[in-house]
């Protein structure tokens, strides 16, 4: 018997359902093994996990808080990765989006109506994210520099810029007045009028607070889908992604499109930053942003969603639930690191399961030739 791995010429429809389900089932199995090995009861933990992610009082609201930034960074990554542009810079672009949105909210102050403040923050966040993404974009489009590493490096530069703004300067973003800020440097809060609203839906477990950000994320997902499916721009992107030579042959302006996609991706990440600060953080907090790894998680979200914008939103919701449940479970007998481990196993399983989509793996009998080792 031997294993054969062959590329699939076409992917039957049932695979698209069976493979992710199988991967998730495997992930739960593997996590159960880990939980058993670390002295936890898997059934108990899973039940608690699902409850605290989705069913406890206030759980859904908390899950949405975790899911919103992941949806944005996931969409940002999906927009670029779909085109074989590996923008790893969602992290830094989100930071810049936060800085841009906070700046405009502070500039507008209390005077601006909420709707104006929100619109301005969205634009500022998107522009700041796009600008930061334009650096690797220009380098890739015009100097053929690999965007993976440049966008990755720029994440750290962006993080340091935020640190500088809050910890090592008396910048506009820093709170220099309040008493607590005198003890430890912190960002200045945006005015109440610039805080993004939540829509409250009654019903399950005392109502769900739906952040405006997740609504915008769904809109962005829809727009991305329409862009890729129904526009000339999207058509050109598909061709460039599949074969840059064919795109050149067809007279497409490849470089401009590369730059445009990088900026689009950065803009979405930046918008995520605006949503994060508008809906939840309300100030520029470099430490917290850097601990969350929104950008990197977004790439994994996008990969798990196979770069489909609607699937990104769903996966972000599920991962958000896992993350939120992690906070809830955290305690002496469930160390925080275990959540990361569980997330990792989940990611590895789905990632590894992808091979079944692309390849057919069969067990077959070896050839009938007598098995004599070749003479040396």
């Amino acid at each position, binding site marked *: 018997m031997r294993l054969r791995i062959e590329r699939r010429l076409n992917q039957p429809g049932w695979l698209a359902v069976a493979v992710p389900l199988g991967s998730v089932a495997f992930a739960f199995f593997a996590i159960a093994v880990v939980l058993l090995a670390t002295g936890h009861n898997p059934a108990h933990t899973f039940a608690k996990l699902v409850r605290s992610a989705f069913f406890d009082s206030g759980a859904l609201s908390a899950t949405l808080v975790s899911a919103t930034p992941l949806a944005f960074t996931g969409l940002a990554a999906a927009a670029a990765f779909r085109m074989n542009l590996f923008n790893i810079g969602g992290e830094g672009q989100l930071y810049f989006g936060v800085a841009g949105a906070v700046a405009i909210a502070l500039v507008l102050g209390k005077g601006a109506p909420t709707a104006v403040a929100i619109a301005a923050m969205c634009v500022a966040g998107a522009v700041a994210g796009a600008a930061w993404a334009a650096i690797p974009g220009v380098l890739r489009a015009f*100097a053929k520099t690999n965007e993976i590493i440049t966008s990755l490096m720029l994440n750290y530069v962006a993080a340091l810029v935020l640190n500088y703004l809050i910890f*090592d*300067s008396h910048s506009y973003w820093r709170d220099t007045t309040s008493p607590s800020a005198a003890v430890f440097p912190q960002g200045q809060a945006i005015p109440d009028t610039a805080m993004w609203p939540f829509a409250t839906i009654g019903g399950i477990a005392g109502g769900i607070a739906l952040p405006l950000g997740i609504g915008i994320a769904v809109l962005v997902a829809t727009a991305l889908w329409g862009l890729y499916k129904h526009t000339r721009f999207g058509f050109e992107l598909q061709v460039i992604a599949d074969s840059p030579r064919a795109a050149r042959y067809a007279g497409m302006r490849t470089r401009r499109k590369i730059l445009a996609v990088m900026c689009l991706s950065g803009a979405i990440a930046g918008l995520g930053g605006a949503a994060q600060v508008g809906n939840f953080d309300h100030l520029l907090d470099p430490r917290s942003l850097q601990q969350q790894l929104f950008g990197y998680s977004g790439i994994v979200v996008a990969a798990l969603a196979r770069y489909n914008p609607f699937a990104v939103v769903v996966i972000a919701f599920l991962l958000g639930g896992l993350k939120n449940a992690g906070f809830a479970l955290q305690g002496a007998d469930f*160390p925080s*690191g275990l959540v990361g481990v569980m997330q990792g196993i989940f990611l590895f399983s789905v990632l590894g399961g992808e091979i079944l989509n692309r390849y057919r793996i069969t067990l077959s009998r070896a050839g009938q030739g007598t098995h004599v080792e070749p003479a040396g």
Partner: protein
Amino acid sequence: MNNSIAVVVFASAVAYGTPLLYAALGELLAERSGVLNLGVEGMMLVGAAMGFWAVQRIGGPSGVVLPLAVGVAALAGAAVALIHAFLVITLRASQIVSGLALTIFAGAAGLSSYLGNDLQLADVPASHSFHPVNLFGLGDLPVVGPIVFGQTWLVYTSWLCVVAVALYLSRTRTGLNVRAVGESPQTADAMGIDVVGYRYVHTLVGGAFAGVGGACFSLAITPQWTNDLTGGAGWIAIALVIFAFWRPDLCLVGAYFFGAFQALPFQLQARGILTQIPPEVFSALPYVMTVVVLVLVSSGIAKRRLGAPGALGLPYVREER
């Protein structure tokens, strides 16, 4: 004289550069075989945690415990790398996504943090740690003394590793095979070289080096366990490999160069010099310089002579048409 800022900065550049050097050498080996592993940070953290665990649990004199602990760290790093190897080599998953997933799995919010909690590593002093050794009694020489002869065994060993890796890649048959696997796996395969085997081995060895790099923090620099104690060194190591044009000798230079930028702000602050320059500028320089170097090597001819291994990041599939 040995207290002058230049000497102190250079000496601590070597100390801070050493974990970068180990991790970069490992990443270099993996990348030379065609496997990009962005999970260096995670592997370093797990190595740091397991190395620290080993010194706390193994009894005996430092001379025995510390090498054992480094070995444990190396094994831990390799074990984490095995996940990446299996995913990208056998299952042909995207190297980028898998590497990032590895960071999430093993990083500051994952396995390393769990190990730190579960093995109760935090807030305890190290039972053994690496101390500077006055090599050949030359540590008191002016200038070169503290920089070259007043370091820990981890530093001296890293020099041996640089020489070993450099000779391995350029002067040995297996080294030639690794380079062929990374440049053109089709050719290597046709010439009877086991592409999958070479990639596995070098990804694992890369993980082992990263684990040792992490142990440099928990056994020498800090020396104790705190969550996220590497503070982004793994990402700098990835930058370093590019900065060094995938060459081990230049990795050494680059590691100390980058190490100096980590050491410089503290020294400047302590001495109250150049305080008008924000420390972030120095911290950002390694990243910015890596971007600049990448742009420079992106042009056609430079790419061929100095650039990345030809098949870096690409899965190899034999039976395909």
